[in-house]
């Protein structure tokens, strides 16, 4: 976990020297939904760190698991202690490439973002169709995708199996601003 963070810093620092085309947000939003007949569960995280290097078509995201806030305290506790084990794995990360990326215009443009997502200590390659849009000097990035809990070795006890969906819907919205150190 620590090394991924160091990588992120290196990524940031090294890229900064070479170009000015970097965009960053420290308060990106990620929301996830689990929907079953018995219960809908939703959690929100508004402290997501996301960095785009437009000249290299790269993107890096870092997420604190404990920043996901639930409506019910008990759910948040179970999520952290039993399912995601956030003391052991405090962060989730994503690093990848924006495929066929060229200049972001003021219109919605869809690009596939391909990379490695790491949650609960398990890494997996994903491709996420993502909308990019320029708004003045900011770049808005948003989209959604589904994740299977079993892909990330997240075990749900039998007792609550019916309350938690096997497939979790994730939506994200990052409003990046130009970053100059």
């Amino acid at each position, binding site marked *: 976990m620590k090394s991924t963070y160091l990588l992120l*810093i290196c990524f940031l620092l090294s890229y900064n020297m070479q170009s000015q085309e970097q965009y960053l947000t420290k308060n990106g939003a990620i929301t996830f939904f689990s929907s079953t007949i018995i219960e809908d569960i939703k959690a929100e995280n508004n402290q997501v*760190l996301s960095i785009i290097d437009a000249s290299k078509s790269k993107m890096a995201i870092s997420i604190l698991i404990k*920043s996901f806030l639930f409506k*019910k305290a008990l759910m948040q506790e179970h999520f952290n202690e039993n399912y995601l084990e956030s003391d052991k794995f405090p962060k989730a990360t994503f690093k990848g490439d924006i495929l066929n990326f060229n200049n972001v215009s003021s219109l919605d443009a869809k690009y596939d973002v391909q990379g490695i997502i790491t949650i609960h200590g398990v890494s997996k390659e994903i491709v996420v169709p993502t909308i990019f849009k320029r708004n003045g000097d900011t770049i808005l990035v948003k989209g959604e995708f589904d994740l299977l809990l079993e892909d990330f070795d997240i075990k749900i006890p039998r007792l609550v199996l019916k309350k938690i969906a096997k497939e979790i819907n994730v939506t994200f919205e990052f409003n990046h601003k130009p970053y100059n150190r």
Partner: protein
Amino acid sequence: MNKNKIIFSILIIGILCFFISYKMYNRPHANITESTPDITLTADTIIDAFSSDETKANSRYLDKILNITGTVSELKLEKNKGIITLKTNQDFGSVLCHLSESASQNIHSLIVGQKITLKGVCTGYLMDVILVNAEITNE
């Protein structure tokens, strides 16, 4: 007669169990305003702790209610949620405090450069130390 009593008491216990589990299931989040902070420290101390040894700092500060004092370097309101950045002695990394809904409404009374104490829950360290559900404890 005796049978009725037994059935009746089982019923009472059943209802009680249901009520208690329902209460536990819907238990609200800890009230930050009313709870006493676990640790009181400055923005400089916490950024030093996280940047020098993140694992150690995680075990010490994560999920804890912290009282952090520092100087305001940035104030912003996004989607009606207030975010206060506290200055630290490091040029890379600060303390980002995401205010609670009620505290967000008071953000306009603050100014950049003032000294402030915030109480909130620490969720970890990315580029900055992050505090959520923060309340302004003094101005």
